[in-house]
């Protein structure tokens, strides 16, 4: 028998009230924690993939779409641009590297990207097995592609037209897998990478049978650009937008814009979570206040049996604190389950995974905030214990 045991017994005695209070806390804490996790991991994912890419050029359209499609491979490309215009950028003294990308086909939902070896160098993708593609129609695949499609080295497959899994297949030309990359946490994990020429080959072949496109000029979807120094940032984007058929988009600006857009939603959810936590606090307050009215006689009885008022105060305080602790841990678990579900959906749609379940430093602050709410919500009604008239309470009933 001790104060802790009595508090626990009291919580169990009012199961539904305790459950409601803990549930509200769980919900509020879970939401905040999930937001923290998502925010951090999205941020990490986005920043990791734009590292070292100063500018993206592609067909005119939405700059955000260009960034999303060329760097993150999650949106549709804006269109095609002539390779000659992209290659012209190489002559610019401020430009360090130009990595052309050609997209349009996919295999089982994974994008096939035609590019130069600089692309894999840039993302520091290392081969786990096999070797890098050498000839046209040879590919190296990312770790997630390998895991999900069961492709092995030496396997061949036909790509499908478009970026969805259900496009027409190019049955005539088959790709051959020559290498599999190590998991790198970057966008390479979810890509099938090949030479630029492969993409052209597949489509030239298709054109012979089908449409009438007469243009023999080689085209690419976009190009990732690295500058030699920050001066490039000041002049080149403006030049491109004004003088060529292409547009230039700056990843850092577009991603900040994206986060500002997302930020409104995150802010709203966070406010909602704070409101729920406040309601949880009120719920603890109300249920303790009510139970205290019912238990007034019990309190007087314990005081008459030798309990000090501080000890009873501590006992009531513990009830609130225990609810806070239960709510916190349930909330942390709930947020991990939420993240897992979210990640599963994101993997299906975008092939990105967000699976880091470790405790964030902010969550430790969240723990103290939960304790504080539990403390406040139980301390306020429990102060009445210091005003309780033992004799009158015992005589009244």
């Amino acid at each position, binding site marked *: *028998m*001790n104060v802790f*045991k*009595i508090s626990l*017994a*009291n919580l*169990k*005695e009012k199961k539904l009230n305790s459950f409601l209070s803990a549930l509200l806390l769980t919900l509020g804490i879970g939401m905040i924690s999930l937001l923290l996790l998502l925010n951090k991991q999205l941020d990490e994912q986005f920043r990791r993939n734009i590292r070292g890419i100063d500018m993206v050029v592609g067909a005119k359209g939405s700059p955000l779409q260009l960034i999303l499609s060329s760097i993150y491979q999650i949106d549709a490309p804006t269109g095609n641009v002539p390779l000659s215009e992209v290659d012209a950028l190489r002559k610019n003294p401020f430009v360090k590297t130009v990595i052309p990308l050609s997209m349009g086909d996919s295999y089982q939902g994974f994008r096939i990207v035609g590019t130069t070896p600089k692309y894999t160098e840039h993302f520091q993708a290392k081969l786990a097995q096999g070797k890098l593609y050498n000839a046209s129609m040879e590919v190296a695949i990312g770790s997630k592609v390998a895991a999900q499609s069961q492709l092995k080295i030496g396997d061949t497959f036909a790509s499908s037209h478009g970026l969805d899994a259900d496009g027409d297949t190019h049955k005539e030309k088959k790709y051959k897998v020559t290498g599999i990359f190590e998991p790198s946490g970057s966008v390479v994990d979810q890509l099938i990478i090949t030479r630029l020429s492969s993409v052209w080959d597949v489509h030239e072949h298709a054109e012979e049978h089908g449409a009438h496109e007469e243009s023999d000029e080689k085209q690419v979807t976009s190009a990732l650009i690295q500058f030699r120094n920050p001066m490039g940032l000041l002049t080149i984007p403006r030049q491109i937008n004004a003088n060529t058929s292409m547009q230039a988009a700056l990843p850092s600006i577009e991603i900040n814009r994206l986060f500002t857009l997302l930020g409104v939603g995150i802010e709203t959810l966070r406010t909602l979570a704070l409101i729920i936590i406040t309601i949880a606090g009120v719920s603890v307050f109300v249920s303790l206040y009510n139970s205290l009215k019912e*238990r007034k*006689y*019990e309190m007087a*009885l*314990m*005081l*008459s*049996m*030798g*309990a*000090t008022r501080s*000890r009873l105060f501590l006992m009531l305080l513990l009830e609130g604190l225990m609810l806070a602790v239960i709510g916190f841990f349930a909330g942390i678990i709930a947020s991990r389950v939420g993240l897992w579900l979210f990640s599963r959906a994101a993997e299906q749609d975008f092939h990105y995974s967000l699976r880091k379940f470790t405790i964030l430093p902010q969550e430790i602050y969240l723990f103290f905030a939960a304790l504080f709410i539990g403390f406040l919500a139980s301390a306020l009604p429990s102060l009445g214990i210091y005003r309780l008239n*033992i*004799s009158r309470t*015992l*005589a009244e*009933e």
Partner: protein
Amino acid sequence: MISSTNLRFAYSAKKTFSFPDIQCKDKETLLILGQSGKGKTTLLHLLALLLKPTSGDIMIAQKSVGNLSAEEATKVRAKNIGIIYQKPHFVSSLSVMDNILLSNYLADQPQNKQKARLLAEKLSFAEHLNKKTSQLSQGEQQRVSIARSLMNDPNVILADEPTSNLDDTNTQKVITLLKEQSASIGASLIVVTHDQRLKDEFSNQVFL
């Protein structure tokens, strides 16, 4: 051993009580009889140190305890006085066993489970020790509260209308148990009641 001299208490200027002196030696019993409104509960609360007398003094175990501070009074009460209330009240969330042990715990005494079990057997509610108190009958509850009052071997046992909610058979049982148990630990037993059935059970009586 408990005695009082010239006890007076005032709730307000108009509502004052003065009580006859009482004395109850160790192992003795005393019945205080009175109708409602005569200050029975007030006297009991004064003797239990739950109220502070306006004037007069109380002696428990040869020590003057009438004018102690609230904290001191709580300590003296926890160690020396066992109280049995009219309606047996308990901490409803705890089991019968824990309610009895609460008496030890709140008085900062070691928790004696063996003693609690022994008392439960003597007062014949041992099979209910793990139940909640609300699952017991009135008579059983009153016996539990007797056991609770005995846990710290008090000098004085004060019972406030212990039989008013009980039928004749249970009344007889409870009074016999109270007398037996207080005698066995050498305590003074004071019963405050308006229950005329108890008149013949006690040789020492005071009328308010």
